[in-house]
């Protein structure tokens, strides 16, 4: 009896869910276009910011920056939703946001292609859709704000072409395979550096998954296996810092060059100390600022579609103080 009852209950739940999924599409019209104020009555636009993962430090920084930036707009309220580094979770959040009739949905995809159909659904539902860090290319009617990962790596690679000595031994630290930024940055190094410097030899290349501790372990082993390592080429600052942690007190590697990307607080301090060579800033503040201003422009109907890239300034010893200031202001450096 209990068994039958629970079965019936399950069936009812399933039916409701199926019905629930199909219903929003029927009422989706172009009502959001300029109608945001009406739908809420109080004149505040609602933005759903769907973060890749609150457990990812850059993503968390960006989410925090978006929240801070939104304070500047009286007519915007941002809700941050955590995608938990899972395609499934994130897609579910996008669907929920559509059902909740947000005025704007900003998606920081976990994996661009996996979120593409859901971003398209948001556009179809007439909701302003913005993809960011990394953008999902080619969605009709969606806008995007991003930093160009290829350029981020290129500014470093250009410097490295000049700096890295002849016949140098280098080690390469990669981000997780399949990640857009990881792949683009590595591609950029290949085209802009290794293609131009055939004399340089890669004595070690590993996937350290953006992680400092994994990068440390690899570097410790490389240091044993190689007498000479001239440069660390890392796809982000975290891994570069990990590798430097290993050799920082070793006189043999006093002059080692190290390149990263992101411009984290730790990286700018290392550059200031002369341990790290350069990085390029992927500024969460710049991204957040661009995201909010883009949202605002789209909401007020000023523009229909916007695709912009924020700058990726190169940070070296020459200009590092400026960025230390920036981090101090944000409270990341005391």
């Amino acid at each position, binding site marked *: 009896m209990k068994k039958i009852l629970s079965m019936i209950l399950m069936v009812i739940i399933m039916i409701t869910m199926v019905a629930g999924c199909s219903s929003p599409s029927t009422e989706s019209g172009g009502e959001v276009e300029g109608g945001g104020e009406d739908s809420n009555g109080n004149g505040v636009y609602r933005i759903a910011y769907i973060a890749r993962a609150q457990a990812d430090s850059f*993503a968390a920084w960006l989410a925090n920056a978006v929240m801070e930036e939104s304070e500047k707009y009286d007519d915007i309220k941002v809700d941050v939703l955590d995608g938990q580094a899972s395609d499934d979770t994130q897609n579910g959040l996008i669907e929920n946001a559509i059902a909740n009739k947000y005025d704007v949905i900003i998606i920081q995809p976990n994996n661009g292609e996996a979120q593409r159909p859901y971003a398209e659904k948001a556009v179809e539902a007439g909701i302003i859709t913005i993809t960011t860090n990394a953008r999902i290319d080619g969605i009709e009617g969606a806008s995007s704000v991003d930093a160009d990962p290829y350029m981020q790596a290129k500014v470093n690679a250009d410097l490295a072409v000049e700096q890295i000595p002849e016949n140098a031994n280098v080690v390469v630290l990669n981000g997780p395979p399949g990640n857009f930024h990881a792949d683009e940055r590595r591609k950029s190094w290949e085209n802009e550096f290794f293609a131009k410097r055939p004399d340089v030899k890669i004595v070690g290349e590993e996937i350290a998954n953006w992680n400092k501790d994994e990068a*440390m372990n690899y570097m*410790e082993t*490389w240091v044993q296996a190689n007498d000479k390592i001239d440069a660390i080429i890392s796809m982000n600052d975290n891994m570069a810092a990990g590798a430097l942690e290993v050799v920082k007190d070793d006189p043999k590697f006093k002059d080692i060059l190290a390149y990263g990307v992101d411009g984290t607080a730790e990286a700018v301090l290392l550059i200031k100390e002369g341990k790290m060579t350069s990085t390029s800033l992927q500024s969460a503040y710049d991204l957040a600022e661009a995201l909010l201003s883009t949202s605002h422009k789209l909401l007020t109907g000023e523009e229909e579609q916007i695709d912009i890239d924020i700058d990726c300034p190169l940070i070296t010893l020459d200009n590092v103080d400026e960025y230390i200031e920036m981090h101090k202001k944000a409270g990341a450096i005391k």
Partner: protein
Amino acid sequence: MSKYSIYFVLLALFIISWLANENFIQPNNLKNVANQISVGTILAFGQTILVISGMIDLSSGSVLALAGVLSVSTYVNTGSLLLSFVVAIIVSVTCNILNGLMITKFRTPPFIATLAMMTMARGAALLYTRGQNIYQIGDYIIFGQGSTFGIPNPIIFLIITLLVTAYLLKHTIFGRSIYAVGGNEEAANASGIDVNKTKMKAYIINGIFVGIAGIIFMSRVNGGMPNGAISYEFKALTATVIGGTSFTGGVGTAMGTLAGAFIVGFLDNIMVMVGVDSYLQQVVRGAIIALAVIYDIWAKTGKADKKLRSAE
């Protein structure tokens, strides 16, 4: 003979690695391996105690991160190494007392209880730091990067926790009790062992180890990282299981776990050294783990069968 099968696997791997790359045998390299496995192995000692008593801790990676960031933060704010050490231990032990309470008082299966703690502790670490790493941790790095009498501190912690675990297992009533509880909980209870107290103690000791591991981890990476040590619980469980601790409970040793940790450590090390393709590395790592365990089980059951027959 078969009791020592896992040590033969380790020896074989050692010799093969040596032949594959002469740098492998360099004292510095071996020191590195010991350094690298220290965090995972200290966690593994905690897991060994728990798995022997028929339990598990899925929360150790997350609790490590929580204890670690709170400890780093304490140091950054007070400048006291001692205080930051104590904070890490207190935080981690508290989380593990909660694990223990869920299991002994509310009869939650250890798998579920610690799974819940895994999520809670990680969330708390991220909440506290708002997802941001804490940098400029100054002298805190002495725990993970400093040396005492020429021996790196992580290795010293590793040795201390090894000795403590081995001592607890062999020379204390608690040790005998956890083997009994894991081997047959009902019989242990009927023999006058306080099962709940034993389980609680196991989690508390695990908590101390996780706290120490948290300090070393944060200190080694020179920062308070709320995202640090994700899935380290599985790293620890891998070493534990390769080391011959039985998931059905009642069997396992500290030395076995250390051997298991070194097997994984050497394997990772030699593959990077000889430049095995990084995707292939994962395949090989998995395969070797499977082979090591198969060999170990084969060697053991062979013996068990013989004994069974001769006793008949």
